[in-house]
């Protein structure tokens, strides 16, 4: 009888943690940025020593130049013979998919899945980067709602 309880979750919370619905609810606002001129080696060092897998690459004037991710590093390694000599701009992803704070989480998740990416920089109405949403942010949110769904299943089964 789990399904009825699930429905209730979206109608009223029944005291459970309310579910996040849009990007602004769960995005990270602390960002690690790089300049396009950092060397590949510096970027790899930074990535190894930080918990983040995605760095925004920012132009001197503050505009977004691209995203540098752990996947970019792997790809460069597998396909570029002289990767040691590259700088960040030669390896990063230039075509960046973004979200706005109002983007529904389901849209953000399907964007990540269909593009096979793990982060979306978030742009505010003023056109400036205001955060980043990663697959980890989504998983944290999933864990909360999934736990409350599982709990309500148990409650329902017990009360039957």
């Amino acid at each position, binding site marked *: 009888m789990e399904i*009825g309880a699930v429905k209730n979750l979206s109608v009223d919370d029944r005291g459970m943690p309310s579910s996040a619905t849009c990007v602004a609810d769960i995005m990270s606002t602390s960002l690690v940025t790089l300049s396009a001129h950092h060397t590949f080696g510096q970027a790899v060092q930074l990535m190894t020593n930080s918990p983040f897998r995605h760095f925004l690459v920012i132009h001197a004037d503050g505009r977004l130049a691209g995203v540098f991710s752990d996947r970019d590093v792997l790809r460069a390694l597998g396909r570029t013979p002289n990767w040691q000599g590259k700088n960040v701009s030669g390896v990063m992803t230039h075509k960046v998919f973004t979200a706005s704070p109002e983007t529904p989480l389901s849209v953000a998740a399907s964007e*990540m899945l269909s593009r096979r990416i793990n982060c979306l920089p978030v742009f505010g109405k003023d056109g400036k980067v205001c955060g980043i949403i990663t697959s980890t942010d989504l998983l944290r949110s999933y864990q909360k709602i999934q736990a409350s769904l599982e709990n309500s299943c148990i409650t329902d089964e017990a009360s039957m």
Partner: protein
Amino acid sequence: MNHGNPESTAREASMPSENDTRGRYKCVADVMTRKTVTLSPHHGFAEAVSLMADRHFRHVVVADTGGQILGVISDRDILRTLARTSNWQTKDVGQIMTRDPITVKCETPISVAVAKMVAKRINCLPVLDDEGKVCGILTSTDLLKAYQKLLESLENNRATL
């Protein structure tokens, strides 16, 4: 289907057939990837790199010939090796894999698996059967897919209320 009457809404809410029930998964077996790629500890570093770069996965299970799990090698392991080892070309999978990885079982609740992944900062959990053999792998992508379905159905249900 409803007219804003709280009582009828409550009654409808308890009728499964009226609801969008996509994404209502319970345990790891419902969402895991059953097809896994396995390497032996003797494969070279370069083989692991090209496997990951060419195919679309970030995690490979390392197992012995009997199917018993020895470790997991991830793109993070490769990055770490690259950044910290000068002679990475000569390394093999057994030297750079994560030993004794955190695993789950088919019947582990999904919320428990997600919590493990987030807390340990990992993106995959090998799924073991009762004999300790690998029967699948649960990745953050599997979980995102499940969450995406759940979000859509919740939005759908909200819209029809």
